[in-house]
């Protein structure tokens, strides 16, 4: 299982899904209409490292985080 965390204002509790790649995570999350605006503007981290593409292999226990638009300071 892969744990998906929705950070900051997304306001959704973490979920756990079966996924072998980030592309499979994308397919699952695209089925949730409430996430649609967030998927377009969120960055993605796997195990706390930002990634730039979907061809990232995942293994059991990995953590995927969605980071929506930021504004510190």
């Amino acid at each position, binding site marked *: 299982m892969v744990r998906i965390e929705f*950070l*900051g*204002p997304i306001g959704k509790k973490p979920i756990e899904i079966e996924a072998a790649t*980030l592309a499979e*995570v*994308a397919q699952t*999350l*695209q089925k949730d209409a409430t996430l*649609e605006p967030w*998927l*377009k*503007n*969120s*960055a*993605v*981290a796997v195990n*706390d*490292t*930002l*990634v*730039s*593409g*979907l061809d990232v292999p995942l293994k059991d226990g990995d953590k995927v*985080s*969605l*980071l*929506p*638009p*930021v*504004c*510190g*300071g």
Partner: protein
Amino acid sequence: MLELYDGPLDVPALLTRWYEEEAQSNYGAFIPFVGTVRAEDGIDGLSFDIYEPILRRWFDAWQAKAADKGATLKMAHSRGDVSVHASSYIAAVFSPKRRVALEMIDAFVEDFKAAAPIWKYDLVDGERRYADDRSSAIAGSGILAGGDA
């Protein structure tokens, strides 16, 4: 050094301590940036969420960049609620000579705004409202969206 606090920052105490920590380090320049919550648009204050693991990695990468130039960075940020006229963010650069610190404080604070995993909310009538109009998508965002996003 990255320091996170619940609520507003104690500006005089932080700046004094940072100054004293480096007083004998032979830095010729110490340039702090203090961010203060302004009273505007009827807000009572701001509130912040922080994702600490990635914030620490981001900061460590900047600290390594600073070290390459003989400089050091310090930063403090608030979690949770901060009232107007209080401080939520302080950054500082110490460097042997002024030019490195002047340039680095600018680049550091700008990248902080664009990339640090911190989310801001306006506090209005006791409610927390995400400041989406002032927020920026982190570079590379949108890969999970389908279609032509």
